[in-house]
């Protein structure tokens, strides 16, 4: 089935990363914490695998969020990964604290500047940072 090929999968992600307003995407492996795919993020470590990056949103990022530019514009993928990891852990413990049998399905974190949408899964984590609609 064509649907199952890894090209199709890649195309899905690429499309997602190119949706209007999307600043960056990030896929982490839950087992190892390794970064599987990113877009719109720079990688600090020189050993980062260049194959794991996707074409970013076509919008000029500098214009898209000038306020982020101060701290180096685009965030460092590793930093984001670490912070997201901590956030998910915290959310997980909160949910578990409320109900042992419950689990986190979706995290939407709205900030003044943008929104993070996080889909945690037993194996992987998908994170998308996108602009909030002009309000």
């Amino acid at each position, binding site marked *: 089935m064509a*649907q199952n090929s890894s090209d199709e999968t890649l195309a899905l992600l690429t499309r997602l990363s190119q949706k209007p307003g999307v600043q960056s995407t990030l896929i982490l492996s839950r087992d190892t914490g390794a970064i599987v795919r990113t877009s719109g993020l720079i990688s600090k470590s020189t050993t980062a695998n260049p194959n794991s990056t996707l074409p970013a949103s076509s919008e000029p990022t500098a214009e898209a969020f000038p306020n982020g530019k101060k701290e180096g514009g685009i965030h460092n993928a590793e930093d984001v990964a670490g912070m997201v990891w901590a956030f998910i852990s915290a959310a997980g413990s909160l949910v578990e604290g409320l109900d042992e049998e419950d689990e986190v399905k979706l995290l939407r974190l709205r900030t003044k500047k943008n929104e993070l949408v996080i889909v945690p899964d037993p194996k992987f984590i998908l994170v998308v940072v996108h602009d909030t609609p002009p*309000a």
Partner: protein
Amino acid sequence: MDSTLQQRRDEILAKKAKLAELKQARAIRKEQAAARQSLTGSPSEILQPTPKRGGLDQGHDIDAIISGIYENSRPGSTQPGSPAGGRTTRPTSVISAGQLSSDNESGTGTYRAPLGMVDQGMQTLSIAPLSTVFEYEGQPVEAPPPRKEEVITYSKGVQASIDWSPPRDRGVGGSDSERDESPTRSPRSKRLSRRQKERDEEIRLQLKKEIEEELKAADKAAEAGEVPTTSKENFPFKTLTDEELTAVESSDVFIDFVERSTKVLERALDQQLDYDILADYAHENSNVDEEDEGYGSSGAKKGRRIKEIAQFWDDRWSKKRMISDLGFSPKFPELVLASYTKNPSAPHDPDGLIQVWNLHMHDRPEYIFHAQSDILTAKFSPFHPNIIIGGAYSGQVLLWDTRAKSAPVQKTPLTGSGHTHPVYSIDIVGTQNANNIISASTDGVVCGWTVDMLSQPQEFLELTSPPPSKTDDIAVTSIAFPQSDPTYFLAGTEEGSIYPCHRYDRAGAKAGVDGRVKYAGHGGHAAPVMSLDFHPAKGQIDLGDLVLSSSVDWSVKLWKVRPPAATGPSNTAAPLGQQVEPILDIAREDLVYDARWSPVRPSVFGLVDGAGSLEIWDLNVDVEVPVQKTTPSENKKGAFENMGGRIYMNRSLNKLSWEKNEGRRVAVGGMDGVVTVFEVGGDLGGVETKGDEWSGVKKLVSKLEGAGEGVNGN
């Protein structure tokens, strides 16, 4: 009394437990010390030869190391999931020492050399970290809850030696605040262990403390389980090699995950575009919705407006295909399916395609289904929310399941037992517990199937033209079942006549075309009938005998069908081939491809034509002009985007479908492969209907009948 006794007993118990622990600890400590000595022996020996640092000032080093221990150990316990903590939980000092000294530049090695020694020295000096050690070790043996916490504490002690590598900038920043705590605490426990191990009070104090920590840690219960394991390798800085990357990406789990998670995200992003839940109306006056439904402006009242709400088109799949059928899911009103013909320029893609679109996900279909042959008609099963049935050009009847992959889960074989001609019309009739798929092909064959078995038709009926006609052949283009009777249906043909048919033999009529009546005549259709639709009739007055037909002869006709069971003398006496005229003939300005009753409003129906217009009619308002007429916008460029002229070709709309539960939404689609969904106003859709709407239609029908036949219809 009781309470004091209880208290005492508790104390004794606690003491006993503590004693056991201590004993155990001592044993373990001995073991460990020995083990460590032997283990650390080799690396430190190897490392020692680098005297650069060791010679300078060992005392300083020791200080640094000790502070380092506290500094590094804290983050390990408090934020085990954090990246900095990742390294710290390495199981033994030896491994990491060896690793680091071998991987890293010699500078690190010099740090490490004294470390190994200091580590050993520390063991002799302080029992405190070791007292935590034993508790950790005790864990495997029926550990009481507080030990959990100690697992982490222990790992600091070990890590201290490991983590000696140049501290990461992040780690230092993060641990600053916590540094104050640990030195105060560990020394105390040091003192404790040194001075009076036997004194229960102190021990209890410590236990209490541990319990407190445990309580704190309870919040982190979620991590506690997995973090010790994950944090070991869970190191977000870790980068994957090419091979690992491809391995991960080609794994089914990953593909599955991406499939699911991107869907969720697209919905999330699309939902956001519709409405910003954080909108603050007090602060932004510019954002107030400018409703374009001014009072009576442009003749369209608010209740009769029609608004485009979504368009669906997929670059990959919709290209160069035409829409052959549309249908809303009866269970999930936001899902609409569209079937497509083949893409002539992509011979490697499957010919047949069904995409299920979600009104909340604009850019991508929720499901994609394939078939070997063009799909000409498809619909959701009203009785199984997951099942989609379809008819193909090859004559096959296919069945897909939204829980399965994109290939059909069942299909009829390509043999003579079923259809051998294209299936343009399909339906599921019956009840929840007893229903059949009925399909009709252009050679006049009508088959009945059960959903469970498509290998053999349950019913096989060949329709033939009744006697007066010159040939037997009858080319069925569409069939329609009345709401009330699954054994009787109408068949529209290519020549324009509409025949009543029976599925089974019954009194006065054999199975097949009922030759007594024919809905044709000079008022009938003069060209192929494109659609037939019985009135849904869910109101106070039964209007189930009203049928709407559309044809490429540029007209829509309204018929009142004779009850099928009418076998009275007047009917049997009637000559064969009696022709019934339509009660209303609505001439349009183009080919009419589809006309459908509103599922909730008795007087409302919609039609689509070859000029690309969607028209909404309300018979109670007007029988000559539609109340609304609109065309899909051209935001989504369909198959003909590059073709300059032939505008009519581009825009032609083939199919129309109402959302069945509320009747608020209409989906239309056509030659360009774009599905457009409109929402109609409260006068044209919505479940609450007024009684006079029904009686209005009834009156209208009586009037029309009287006018048309000169006989008083009842």
